């Protein structure tokens, strides 16, 4: 029973990693109705920016804000420079561009900052908070940040005009255009916001998994799993989904022989496929009801 509780708590801590990234995934989905397979690498790169700023002597807060702001601008730039010119191309071509972006960012980060792992500071400290070190103050802080981002996103999407415009642009671009929504700007804004959220996620994740160019590759899959479980359209669902995946993974890893120990990623795969087939809109996503 003790072990169960310990693993669940530790899963919650790991889950908040996934939750952070899942939020960024949901954000980009809200803007372009698409998954960004380079999202993890963008977050990694942003985290390196923060690290570099601190190496140059910037205080934590400045590095944090600086990296988020940089990412916001860079996200918009990526959309404008890379994706806008081919927005009419087939969706498969878009995926190839995501792949290209992935390769470029990963390679560039390795080239600039090399591949050795680097430690990354946390503003929350890493003392044991409760459960004998199972949840550290950083884990709790990370969860707090995830929830703060969640609330901000909720307010943005539900209670601001621009949030509504963004949802409209993503849901039905042509119609949105006919209502005077500047769809192109909304897409850019969505990219910028997703990149900034990714930066925050990266900065929160790096103290736990350490900073290196390959830090996000596998976390991205768990982030996808979290986002899918919660529903790609629901920021709240993404956070819940991320936490759930973390806990499920740990418990399965502890209690299911072989499968759990060796096939943790397969569990994520299983969760994705199971949720998608049973309830494609996720647990909290809005099912789109249409009458013809």
């Amino acid at each position, binding site marked *: 029973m003790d072990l169960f509780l310990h693993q669940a708590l530790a899963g919650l801590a790991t889950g908040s990693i996934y939750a952070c990234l899942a939020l960024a995934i949901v954000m980009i989905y809200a803007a*372009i109705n698409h998954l960004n397979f380079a999202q993890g690498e963008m977050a990694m790169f942003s985290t390196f920016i923060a690290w570099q700023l601190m190496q140059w002597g910037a205080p934590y807060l400045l590095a944090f804000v600086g990296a988020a702001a940089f990412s916001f601008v860079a996200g918009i730039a990526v959309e404008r420079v890379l994706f806008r010119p081919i927005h*009419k*191309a087939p969706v498969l071509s878009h995926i*190839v561009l995501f*792949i*290209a972006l992935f*390769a470029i960012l990963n390679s560039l980060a390795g080239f600039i900052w090399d591949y050795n792992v680097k430690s990354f500071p946390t503003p929350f400290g890493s003392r044991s908070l409760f459960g004998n070190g199972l949840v550290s103050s950083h884990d709790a802080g990370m969860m707090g940040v995830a929830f703060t981002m969640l609330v901000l996103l909720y307010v943005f999407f539900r209670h601001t005009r621009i949030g509504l415009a963004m949802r409209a642009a993503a849901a039905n671009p042509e119609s949105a255009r006919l209502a005077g929504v500047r769809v192109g700007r909304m897409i850019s804004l969505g990219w910028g916001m997703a990149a900034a959220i990714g930066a925050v996620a990266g900065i929160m994740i790096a103290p736990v998994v350490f900073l290196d160019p390959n830090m996000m590759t*596998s976390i991205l899959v768990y982030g996808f799993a979290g986002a899918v479980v919660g529903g790609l359209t629901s920021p709240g669902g993404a956070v819940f989904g991320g936490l759930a995946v973390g806990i499920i993974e740990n418990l399965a890893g502890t209690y299911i022989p072989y499968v759990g120990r060796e096939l943790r990623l397969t569990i994520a795969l299983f969760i*994705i496929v199971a949720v998608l*087939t049973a309830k494609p809109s996720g647990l909290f996503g809005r099912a789109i009801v249409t009458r013809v």
Partner: protein
Amino acid sequence: MIAGVALALLLPLAIKGFFLFQLTLALIYAVAILGLNLLTGFNGQFSLGHSAFYAIGAYTAAILMDQADVAYYWTLPAAGAACFIVGFLFGLPALRLEGLYLALATFALAIATPQLLKSTPLEPWTGGVQGIVILKPEAPLGLPLNSDQWLYYFTMLTAALMYAGAVNLMKSRTGRAIMAIRDNPIAASAMGVNVALYKSLTFGVSALYTGVAGALGALTVQFVAPDSFTFNLAIALFVGLVIGGVGSIPGTLLGGLFILFVPNIAEELSKGLAQAVYGFILIAVIYLMPSGAAGLIRLIVGRTARSRSQPVHFETASRSARLTRETPMSSSTSGDENAK
């Protein structure tokens, strides 16, 4: 055409074994991409996880040769059959997944494949992380060919059969049903096409092609290990598909050549930033030909041949282009008066 075939047949006598080995691999990748293309280009289903089927094909061949001393040529049908079954089964849940969601599910499959291959329960067969080393086939009947040359011809023969099979399949009733599902699933279903069955079948056939390619790949590389079939392979196949041209059978050959040679070119250009260079090449290619090489060729041919009577293949080409033209940013609310 004949000159091309002649060149392909005579090439092994003129070039180095290493280059031949590369060509053989490119051809193998082309067959794997063809499999992916049957699924994506002709049936409209996404997959970012075809490395899994490639791996199953490769392991089937390796295990049969290593543990049961099966002759290498028998491993191809076995690999194909195994992959057909697995593909068909994976196709069943995939039925309920559309576009992006299917991409996501298959993406996860690709990521999980290496773990599954080395998992303890399978270790007695797969050799776990150590993988399996197999022998290279020698030329039969005392043909005066070294094993590289023989493997090249063997691969070419297999590939020719596979391509002929694909072309015939797409010309058949079944092929028309498969494409009808891509173009308009509701209409296809209304016309009496069993959409579920055909979609799963296509998944199976697609996996079969990629699996046979995997078996050939195992023979050529003489080694299988979990690290050979990571997500990067899935990505490579996907890139080859798009670069070659979605829905284009000859384009797959180009895709195979691309994914084998272009990373090497990128490495020549810059060692430290090879991946970044590769990324930029990808971007450039997508900008220059947003619908892949086949799309570009089609465009050129279409321009020069517009005045002539409409070629037959033009119709299917534009149909497949329409499928893939659905961008994430456009929903189809256009009226019914689009020019036919």
